[in-house]
């Protein structure tokens, strides 16, 4: 048995008269419990609230995605009788729907989903801390998120914004009623930005100051490294979003030409400002997913992660390079010189991502893989993320990007990275930590069935979009020339498979909450600290402050805490002559 699990088992007392209860234990009648949750400074409760909020946003954004795909099932055509056929929604409704899909998924789902939900829940547990460094700031960032989400949704549903999630000027500031809503929407993004900054700041300080005794930087789980890199980007990049919104406000209020060509401003400047934030934001979305991947692969393959330091530093490398590649979104808009510089820099970001993939593959060598839902998601990630990665090469190369820019090739690429990368890692992580979060097991067969639908549905929906995109199908089209019909139909059928997969997961989780089997403390045999505490964890996380005596992935030398040695036999120790270090 490991020395970390020297804590007593069960919900017993410390001998100080205080009884340890699960953080989910109701505080009293319903309204008392609700008030307790609403005013909680417990990172676990805040993380769980984020999880429910972002899951709601995911389904909201998903409904609009399904509507977009449904509209594109048939091209709009005029039949021989002169009637318009094949059109479910008028163009202006379609344009609002793809905008809603983009804004909700980017700002309300994927940016907060992993860092704020999983980061909040797991970071202090993995570090062996009682809470994050600033628990009250954490609660504030939750309410700022709610406020920002509320403002954004009022703007989106109230006026109907049809600009796409990029809000390019001058289209977004043309003085019609509809476009005044854009300002409200960008205010929502501004507020959400502060939530992001607060959370990032909190996590950076937590990682620096609250690691358990004995935990050096290289004893931290790789998920923590990834969240740490993400938090640095959040703190440094998000203020630019705020500056952009302020400049928009100044332009509107005082008629100073900044972005509006009618006032002498420059729309290309807006593109630069927008992507100076939004490109690093792409890595806010994917880095935490990579962190989850490292945990899933190591635990479910029961193998020390290959190249720990390479993976840890590649997270920081990605964070650093993410700030200097924004111009690759502007290859059709900026000067040839700027194109050359940004293209060259963009290729550098491919390297740390590739390093991670190679190390994950190498980790599987001589490992022991189980095919449960979290691991299937991790393996699926390797497939989809690699496709997302190599198709990025077409977009970093200037000549080919000029052709592919603003086509479905780009749409397919970023869905392979965002949904096939961050999204799939998120669903894997959700199954992985679900037993710890709620103390209930989910049904494994249903989980696997959900994965199969999601994986096949995802690839059906998006792979075909590479083909139609590079053949010239532009994005954000409410209808299309008839040549592309079959491609769109395959893609739309894929979106229905995705829906089935997500509904299976949703019902599986609901069933688990209602009558799932009680979860053991360490169902997967993990070695990181969150598995040493109760499932669900007690309110202050650990019965005693944990002390670190082994690394997070020392599966070859340590039987995981609360696991039976029969199930986790250790390999024979190396002979002294075999030892290299």
């Amino acid at each position, binding site marked *: 048995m490991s020395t970390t699990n020297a804590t007593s088992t069960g919900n017993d007392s410390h001998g100080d008269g205080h009884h340890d209860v699960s953080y989910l234990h109701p505080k009293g009648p319903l309204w008392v419990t609700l008030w307790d949750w609403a005013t909680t400074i417990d990172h676990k409760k805040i993380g769980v609230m984020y999880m429910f909020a972002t899951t709601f946003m995911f389904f909201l954004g998903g409904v609009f995605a399904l509507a977009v795909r449904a509209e594109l099932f048939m091209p709009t055509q005029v039949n021989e009788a002169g009637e*318009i056929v094949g059109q479910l929604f008028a163009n202006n409704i379609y344009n609002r729907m793809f905008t809603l899909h983009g804004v909700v998924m980017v700002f309300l789902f994927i940016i907060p989903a992993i860092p704020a939900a999983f980061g909040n829940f797991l970071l202090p547990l993995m570090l062996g801390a009682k809470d994050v460094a600033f628990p009250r700031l954490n609660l504030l960032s939750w309410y700022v998120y709610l406020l920002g989400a509320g403002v954004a949704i009022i703007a989106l549903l109230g006026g109907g914004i049809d600009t796409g999630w990029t809000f390019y000027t001058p289209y977004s500031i043309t003085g019609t009623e509809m476009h005044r809503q854009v300002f409200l929407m960008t205010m929502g993004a501004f507020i959400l930005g502060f939530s992001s900054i607060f959370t990032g700041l909190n996590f950076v300080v937590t990682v620096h100051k609250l690691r358990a005794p004995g935990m050096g930087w290289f004893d931290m789980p790789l998920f923590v490294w990834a969240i740490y890199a993400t938090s640095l980007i959040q703190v440094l990049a998000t203020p630019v979003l705020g500056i952009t919104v302020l400049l928009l406000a100044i332009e509107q209020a005082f008629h100073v030409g900044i972005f509006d060509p009618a006032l002498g401003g420059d729309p290309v400047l807006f593109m630069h400002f927008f992507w100076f934030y939004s490109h690093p934001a792409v890595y806010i979305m994917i880095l935490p997913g990579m962190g989850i991947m490292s945990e899933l692969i190591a635990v479910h393959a029961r193998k020390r992660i290959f190249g720990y330091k390479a993976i840890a530093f590649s997270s920081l490398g990605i964070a650093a390079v993410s700030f200097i590649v924004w111009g690759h979104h502007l290859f059709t808009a900026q000067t040839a010189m700027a194109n050359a510089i940004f293209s060259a820099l963009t290729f550098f970001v491919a390297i740390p991502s590739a*390093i991670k993939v190679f190390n994950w593959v190498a980790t599987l060598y001589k490992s022991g893989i189980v095919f449960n839902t979290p691991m299937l998601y991790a393996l699926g990630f390797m497939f989809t993320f690699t496709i997302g990665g190599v198709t990025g090469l077409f977009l970093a190369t200037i000549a080919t990007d000029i052709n592919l820019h603003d086509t479905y090739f780009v749409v397919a690429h970023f869905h392979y990275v965002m949904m096939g990368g961050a999204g799939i890692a998120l669903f894997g992580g959700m199954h992985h930590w679900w037993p710890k979060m709620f103390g209930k097991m989910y049904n494994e067969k249903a989980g696997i069935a959900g994965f199969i639908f999601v994986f096949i549905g995802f690839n059906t929906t998006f792979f075909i979009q590479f083909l139609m995109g*590079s053949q010239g199908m532009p994005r954000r089209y409410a209808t299309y020339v008839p*040549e592309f019909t079959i491609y769109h139909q395959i893609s739309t059928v894929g979106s229905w498979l995705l829906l089935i997969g997500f509904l299976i997961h949703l019902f599986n989780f609901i069933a688990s909450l209602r009558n799932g089997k009680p979860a053991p403390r360490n169902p997967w045999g993990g070695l990181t600290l969150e598995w040493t505490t109760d499932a669900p964890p007690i309110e202050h996380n650990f019965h005693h402050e944990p002390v670190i005596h082994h690394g997070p992935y020392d599966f070859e030398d340590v039987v995981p805490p609360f696991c039976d040695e029969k199930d986790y036999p250790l390999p024979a120790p190396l002979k002294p002559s075999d030892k290299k270090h």
Partner: protein
Amino acid sequence: MNFLNPIMSSLATTAPIASNADLNFLERMFLSAQSSEYAGSHDFVFMVIMWLSIVFFLLVMGPFTYFVIKYRRKPGVAIQRSVSHNTPLELAWSIIPLLLLCVLFFMGFEVFISGQIAPANAETINVRAKKWNWNFAYDNGALTDEYTEYVATDVPVFAIPAGKPIRLVMDSEDVIHSLYVPDFRKKIDIFPNRYSTMWFEASHAGERHYVFCAEYCGDQHSQMMAILDVLSPEAYDQWKLDNVVSIGDMYPPDAGEFLFRSQGCNACHSIDPAKSASTGPPWWGIWGRTEALEGGGQVTVDENYVRESIYTPAAQVVLGYPNQMNSYQGLIDPDGINAIIAFMKTLSDEGQANYEAEKAAWQAAKDAAEAEEQATEQ
């Protein structure tokens, strides 16, 4: 253009859009017709990246699949020890891809730069983009009069020569647009506050190519299209001569109809009695109609209302059609407005019934006047 379904009907009814049937299987999956020399060099880079991606993908997925199959966990069996770090390996899989990426960068940069500067003998065509219409103005004053019906609008067909470089000098009337010709592999954003240029040289006479707007620009973005019709250089020169239009010499309703299409009114206003376009009020039966206005009140469509709506569209907006129109001040002169009014008057059952007779009368009067003029000259 289509790899899965090559015989599906194409938009251009008079001549089909260029086909990619001469490309190999993998190219046909991913690329449209290759219709310029630049497209050929682009496709070479594209296929280099494609093969590199396939090899890289297999290099990752091969060992991955092997490990996943081979190293399944067996109950009660200890997992073997193995190294968890190997510096030479880490360096190898960092540096080798980096070198390959340097090669990719240079290939992409070289082809991009080769397509930047137009040859000195290139012919310039001025392109005006606006919501939601393309307008090509040729150097001799020619404008197109050919349109293809598409959804609820008409798509202009512009002639370009084969084997001669063409340089487009483009700006936008309103928001950002982007001119994209997939078959030439070229695209550039078009801004309201500067000129963007692009050049290309079409390879094959007799082909037609789609022009798409690739930067989202509002309601009719997906219908903001044009078709390029590649002619032999001789046919192109003749086309330009034939298409020099003098609006003043045309029968006024015909001149109005010409402006209706060339100025892009057709993107939002329908003239078909059966259809009503969603963006602007339909023009069928518009003359003399009483329209309810946004904010109360009503207006009868007469000369002054038409003139006001073209020059200051936001002044009196018809209820149910939120204003999306920009002023045409400086684009359509008063003679043009008169022509459009004359055109509007023909857009009713009665107007259509009288059209032929009135045009014949106008033509007869014009011919008589010309004959008299010639007679006096002699």
